[in-house]
């Protein structure tokens, strides 16, 4: 294999890792502030992707679709939080896990009813739909670079948010204390609602971004969910840095795994996780 | 001077940039009750946590019977004979008082492979549990579910559990917290009795109790040892008085 093929795989790894990071950071945000473990997080990734598919078919413009999709996701997130998740805050992890597991089933079936079980493609917007040459005979799709770029931007914004704001401080501290937050003069219910919506919107946005390259298919949320769990375990909850490093590691493990050992690619990521667990059970980066 | 049962030398514990305990040394002898005093935030609880193994050291060493146990985990130290009670009641609320102590005593005779034996049939363990309950003043209260015990009784149970593990060293974190006068008096009597054949370290705010039973006193402030010695010496110390001036202490030194 020559250098340019490696380069392509490296770029793919980075892009995949960054997308995972986006999803995982939504997960970590929700857990960090509200202490809820949410299995349906992957479903929002899927919902985002399907929204991108249907809205871009409707409007003919992917960006407009994404914009609409984000708005819809936020609304959906707020409604879900108000209806269901607000009841979970004081519950045990087991109950949260089970309830959100039930949600996955509901979302999957709703998807099946509404959008069917077929695989769909989402067209890349024309002005991004070309490749830039890397070497004489290899080129790389610009849209994938676009994905990586957007994810990096968001990563930067998240970093600023977590490092420089009071809310961010609470995430870093781990689980928030409702009383402490209230003493800071914030309306805690509103904050929880917004944070939840933001977390879900992140996952949905990731799905929307990814839809043109990954296609839209049943079960796409589940794989992403489990991998974002692995990101959180490896990187440590409450650490944006950790999530980024872990997501990139997984991106590389998965991509290169598929290249070198296709039969074992699925396992590669988990072996990586197992190795890291042996070495550092609390995650690569302890809480800041 | 007899060798210390449990001792810390230069014990230090950092949290981020802050040293909660800074270069503290202390010695616990069998037959002695060593009280640790100090205002809130002095580092007393952290010190107990370091000795018991609840927290790892940042620097310094801890020795038990001369052996360096600084790296040993909490459960290993307990099995060696270092017992600890908690300031915030740390019992098994849904179990009866007896079961609390029985489970504690079982740690000395765990028999994990006897999966077909009924745990209650181990008479030695059950007897140790009964003894511990009695010692702590809870005789006859064994069948009561721990969560329904009064606060004072729960503090007694807290001690009973440690006693059930038959330790050499007792690290007691504010055993009198929240107790009424009569219960306190009983606890002080118990402490006096325990001091006779254990090495006892007592972290307390109740000054009267401390001066009634302590053989030695160490006063901490800002994570460091301010002064350490016999009770009369501490009582007379100007430095100690100064540290307590301005404290919301009901009782005075």
């Amino acid at each position, binding site marked *: 294999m020559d250098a340019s093929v490696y380069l392509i795989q490296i770029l793919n790894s980075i892009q995949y890792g960054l997308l995972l990071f986006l999803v995982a950071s939504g997960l970590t945000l929700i857990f960090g502030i509200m202490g809820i473990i949410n299995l349906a997080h992957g479903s929002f990734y899927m919902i985002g992707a399907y929204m991108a598919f249907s809205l871009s078919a409707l409007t003919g413009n992917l960006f407009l679709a994404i914009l609409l999709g984000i708005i819809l996701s936020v609304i959906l997130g707020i409604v879900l939080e108000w209806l*269901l998740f607000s*009841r979970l805050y004081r*519950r045990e992890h*087991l109950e949260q*896990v*089970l*309830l959100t*597991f*039930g*949600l*996955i*089933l*509901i979302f999957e*079936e709703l998807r099946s*009813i509404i959008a069917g079980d077929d695989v769909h493609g989402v067209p890349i917007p024309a002005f991004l739909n070309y490749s830039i040459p890397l070497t004489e005979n290899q080129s790389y799709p610009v849209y994938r670079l676009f994905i990586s770029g957007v994810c990096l931007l968001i990563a930067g914004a998240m970093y600023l948010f977590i490092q420089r704001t009071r809310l961010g401080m609470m995430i870093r501290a781990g689980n928030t204390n409702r009383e402490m937050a209230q003493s800071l003069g914030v309306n805690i219910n509103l904050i929880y609602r917004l944070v939840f919506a933001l977390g879900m919107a992140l996952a949905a946005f990731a799905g929307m971004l990814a839809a043109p390259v990954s296609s839209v298919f049943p079960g796409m949320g589940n794989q992403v969910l*489990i991998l974002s*769990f*692995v990101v*959180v*375990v490896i990187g440590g909850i409450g650490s944006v840095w950790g999530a980024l490093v872990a997501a990139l590691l997984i991106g590389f493990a998965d991509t290169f795994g598929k290249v070198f050992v296709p*039969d*074992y*690619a*699925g*396992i590669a990521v*988990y*072996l990586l*996780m*197992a190795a890291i*667990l*042996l070495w550092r*059970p609390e995650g690569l980066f302890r809480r800041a | 001077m007899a060798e210390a049962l449990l001792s810390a030398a230069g014990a230090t514990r950092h949290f981020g940039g802050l040293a909660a305990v800074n270069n503290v040394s202390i010695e616990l002898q069998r037959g002695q009750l060593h009280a640790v005093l100090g205002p809130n935030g002095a580092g007393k609880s952290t010190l107990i946590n370091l000795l018991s193994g609840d927290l790892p050291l940042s620097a310094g060493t801890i020795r038990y019977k001369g052996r360096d146990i600084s790296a040993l*985990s909490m*459960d290993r130290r*307990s099995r060696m004979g270092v017992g600890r009670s908690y300031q915030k009641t*740390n*019992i*098994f*609320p*849904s*179990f*009866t008082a007896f*079961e609390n102590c*029985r*489970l504690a005593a*079982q*740690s*000395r005779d*765990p*028999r*994990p492979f006897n*999966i*077909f*034996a*009924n*745990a*209650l049939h*181990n008479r030695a363990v059950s007897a140790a549990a009964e003894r511990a309950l009695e010692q702590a003043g809870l005789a006859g209260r064994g069948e009561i579910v721990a969560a329904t015990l009064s606060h004072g009784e729960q503090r007694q149970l807290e001690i009973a*559990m440690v006693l059930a*593990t038959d330790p050499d060293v007792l690290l007691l974190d504010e055993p009198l917290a929240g107790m009424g006068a009569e219960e306190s008096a009983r606890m002080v009597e118990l402490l006096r009795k325990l001091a006779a054949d254990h090495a006892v370290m007592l972290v307390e705010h109740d000054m009267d109790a401390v001066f009634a039973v302590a053989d030695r006193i160490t006063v901490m402030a800002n994570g460091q040892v301010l002064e350490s010695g016999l009770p009369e010496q501490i009582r007379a110390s100007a430095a100690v008085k100064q540290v307590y001036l301005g404290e919301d202490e009901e009782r005075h030194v």
Partner: protein
Amino acid sequence: MTPLPKTLQATFLASALAIALFPLANSPFYIELVTKIMIMAIFAMSLDLLVGYTGLVSFGHAAYFGIAAYAVVLISPKYEAASLWLTLPASVLIAAASAFVIGLFVLRTKGIYFIMVTLAFAQMVYFLFHDTGLGGGSDGTYLNFKPEAKLAGYTLFDLGNTRHFYYFVFALMLLVYLFLRRLLQSPLGRAFIGIKVNEHRMWSLGYPVLRYKLASFTIAGGLGGLAGYLAACQFGFVNPEILSWHQSGNVLLMVILGGMGTLYGPIAGAFAFVMMQEYFSALTKHWQLLMGGLIVLVVLFFPGGLASLADRFKTRGVKKPVVAEAKHG
């Protein structure tokens, strides 16, 4: 453990009798259905040991169910029946050993991390069977001949016979129940419960808690494997879906449906779950929607499960128990 109150004891005896007599009056379809329920009951009881009694919420328990199921298929010869006496212990031991090894990794984590890593490791096992050629990949493999229960040349009972198999599973379910009851009264079992109620204090009292957790994880894995073995024998077929996280979620649901902290709860939960599944799938192709809705409703309004109903019978005029059941600590 406390002896059950009279009303509950009577209910159980009646249920046991009903189960025992069931095959006499019913068609093979229903006999097989109840057999499946009993297999799920064993599966659920095994998870209850872990979740309800030791406080370890595992979202990857299907891995051990599946490993044992694959084990019997893979170690059985292709063209003749294997011995029950060999394959059953072997499969259970393989499942237990897998649980032991995975436990060494996952038990380094706690709380929400633990839930996530158990899920992740189960996925790894899933991919092991799905992506590689092991056990036929995503297509699965068949168990051509069910294991035989032969003694000195004489066939004691025939696993292929619906009624025989039914009573075999029934006997095993009772054995598992009695075994767990015994285990939970033993020093080891008491320690498990202590860990659930107050893990920190257990450390403080001198228990090497990790080792105990590993023991619970291993035993639960072995018993879950027993259920998987029986499932493979019943259907004669295994594929990666039996290890999927849906399966892990389902068995967790059975435990909570029935009510944790009791041993009969998971049996009731398995029964309720399978019946709901049958009922819903007969109603619509999109039955998972109904199942999901049921799960949400149960967790929101009924988190104590069926056993919480039984509790109300229990506390009516009954003497205070010697050891109160460990509920949410």
